[in-house]
């Protein structure tokens, strides 16, 4: 039997306006990180993290088995190093990326100063003189902290769905 949409809607508790505002702000932050990565504004991307914020990636297999990370940057200095590699220390060339983020589920913490989110991502990459290709997909596990009234990433853990990385995998995920 099909669910009674009208009944379900009327029985759901209305979300408070402040909750909606916070969720909207956090969704915008997630989208902003995607946009800055695609526009290669790596220092601006870095500024979306707290001073001690973390950014890490792990394959699906190792997330399930052992916990062996591809990389784990902790703190502004480590993020700055990553930005520098993206801006020229890597000789591996940048491709044009497109980040799509969806299925965002946000949980606000008690007190309104912290939150978590889980979302799915899909990234295409377009090298010079080649067609666009699926580069990566997976799940973002985010932790947020509110500082001076603005939300920042306290931690982003990227679990990539593939267990075999493509040859060019130095882009921001």
């Amino acid at each position, binding site marked *: 039997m099909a669910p009674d949409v009208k009944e379900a809607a009327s029985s759901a508790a209305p979300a408070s306006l402040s909750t909606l505002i916070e969720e909207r702000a956090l969704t915008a932050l997630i989208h902003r990180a995607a946009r800055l990565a695609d526009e290669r504004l790596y220092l601006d991307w870095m500024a979306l993290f707290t001073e001690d914020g973390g950014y890490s990636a792990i394959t699906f297999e190792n997330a399930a*088995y052992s916990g062996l990370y591809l990389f784990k940057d902790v703190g502004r200095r480590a993020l700055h190093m990553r930005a520098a590699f993206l801006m020229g220390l890597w000789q591996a060339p940048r491709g044009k990326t497109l980040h799509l983020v969806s299925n965002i589920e946000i949980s606000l913490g008690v007190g309104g100063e912290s939150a978590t989110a889980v979302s799915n991502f899909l990234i295409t990459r377009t090298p010079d003189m080649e067609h666009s290709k699926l580069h990566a997909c997976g799940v973002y596990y985010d932790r947020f902290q509110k500082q001076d009234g603005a939300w920042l990433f306290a931690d982003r853990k990227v679990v990539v769905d593939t267990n075999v990385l493509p040859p060019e995998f130095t882009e921001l995920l």
Partner: protein
Amino acid sequence: MTDVWQGNSLNLDASRVIDRNIYVDPKIYAAERDQIFAHTWQWVAHESELPELGDYVTATVAGRPVVVARGDDGALNAFFNTCTHRGAMLAVHPRGNSGGSFVCMYHAWCFDTEGKLMSAPMDEAYGDRLEKACYDIPKVRMETFAGNIFISLAADVAPLETFLGQAGPYIEMFTGKHEAIGRVRWTLDGNWKLWHENFRDNYHPMYAHVAIGVNYQGVTIQGTNHDIAQGHSLLAFPAQGNGDPNRIGSVIRKVTGKELGAPPPPGPTVAANADDNRNLILAVFPNLDFQHSPVGINHNLLQIVRPLGVDKAMVEIVVFGEKGESAEVRQARLETSLDGQTAAGKISGDDTEAVRRCAGGFGAVREVRWSNMDRGQSPGDDGAKNDEYSLRAFYVAYKQYMGQALEGVG
């Protein structure tokens, strides 16, 4: 007998050049599968990756699908990963647990962890002509060394320890008291040899890897490069730097326009091996490499490159931790071991790109046929860190295995 690469246009001895056709010729690749990959010991897994009864790993060697499984008696068995009924692969995951038997998904023929046929459904239809012993899966020759599981498709390959030769004691040091703590794989857009050569080549790091180059500026490079026979080689060098902690900071500032912050407090450390506290890169013919770094938490890594075709390969990296190490050290190992490694790594990201660019450059193989491998002029098997004794060691063995297959190429 005249070396097949004699008479090259670089006017060098044949042992000091590489014919680029070996990276692009499908006939050479086919010969490599038959004459090298089917006639050497091939690393498959570390025993610590199969701790439980029924655990298995799969691999493809020279085109043959193979499964290694731990049986009810705790022993390891290697056999071909194919149902003897109609051919379907029995295990399709890189690793898993069989539950004590392998049941074919197609017609449910069931094999034990040694590959012996246990049952076939509705077998009365075969009358009395189904001789089960005829359907046991052929075993694959397997030996272990320092916890590493190797297989060989050929019976005439020397015993594993003999095959490893002088590489053996180093492998014992890297993995003998260790356990594998994870693997990562990535593909290469290029021939498999390009990756293995990269390990034997210590001329490139200070140029291909900007962060390493910065560290070496103004430094007299120390370290050695050895042909240790049978196609194996060793690079050994101390941890070196120019002693200026601000140098990387100045490069970062130049690139990003921002000051790099102060470094975090140092993480945990593990005492280096008292007998040998050098950085070591061990290359085992034809496609296996080990890296050992005594810095920090004493890293031990293994990489194996397997061809997927003449112009495609897959690299697997395995990280090792010491058995019984503290939770703090293990966590640090899980978080930091791969920072420079894999296609996502701050070092290997560039190496992977170098493979891609070489493969692209080989498009001009008809016009530019020869690569130089001439660094290091001292006689013998040993030279400076960025000499090429190690590379030449590979190609001495390569030519022996390939024999006449290299004639008439190009």
